[in-house]
């Protein structure tokens, strides 16, 4: 028994890009959260923007031509699990 939370994370070449992207998304009213880059994505100490999968197109459109995006990764997160494995 598990429930799935489906997020995407947007990665940038530098922290300043993430901050610039955040300013734009805030101004556009597009919900997102600035989080540390998940461990499974990179062990570097970086920040990225997390958003719900349904917003991907809107967010890409809002940033197009304004901020260079390095990568967008799907981040699947199981909140509970019935199996013994993590």
């Amino acid at each position, binding site marked *: 028994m598990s429930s799935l939370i489906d997020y995407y994370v947007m990665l940038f070449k530098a922290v300043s890009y993430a901050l610039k992207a955040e300013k734009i998304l805030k101004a556009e009213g597009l919900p997102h959260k*600035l989080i540390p880059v998940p461990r499974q994505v990179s062990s570097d100490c970086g920040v990225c923007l997390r958003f719900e999968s349904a917003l991907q197109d809107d967010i890409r459109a809002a940033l197009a031509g304004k901020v260079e995006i390095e990568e967008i990764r799907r981040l699947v997160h199981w909140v509970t*699990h019935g199996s013994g494995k*993590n």
Partner: protein
Amino acid sequence: MKPIKIINATGLACPQPVVLTRQAIESNDYVRVIVDNDTALENVKRLGAKLGCNVKCEAGADGNYEIDLTRKPDAALPKEDFVPSCTTATAQTGPFVIVFSEDKMGRGNDELGAVLVRAFLHTIAGQPEKPDVMIFYNTGVKLVLRESEVLDDLKELAAAGVEILVCGTCLNYFEANDKLSVGIVSNMYDIAGTMSKAGRLINP
């Protein structure tokens, strides 16, 4: 109101309180554990957090503690082993406290510090080992105000049983009493007292 299973773990040596709690929560949604020492208190709280329960704790007048564990609806319990800490060195030293004396993490660059504190709180809110108390003073109080970027994480921590103490003098100084959005207004007695008896104290 769901039936409550009460475990009286007073007088029992470590790890008995944890073992009994673990057994009880497997067949009950709502368990109250009564313990008589800090080691058992910390272990049962940690177990509850690890099992994804809502944990609430109250100190009784008789020196005992009542810990209420509530399972989240439809949540399966993780199967990993929980290792109680029975050594006095780690368990009897008092609460785990995080102090925010600024609305940023580290000093040097304010913009960077604001990013780091958000990443820090997101991580703390997501990790199983939550602090017992978080204290906010000086510009740190800006983190608990209405327009704060970290409110969601702080509310999640508060809901998980983390006590959030906010310096009343500081709210008053910033004329922000009406903007307080999470935590309770506290005073220097509680703040200094909590910091003094902390087992671990982090100042990010």
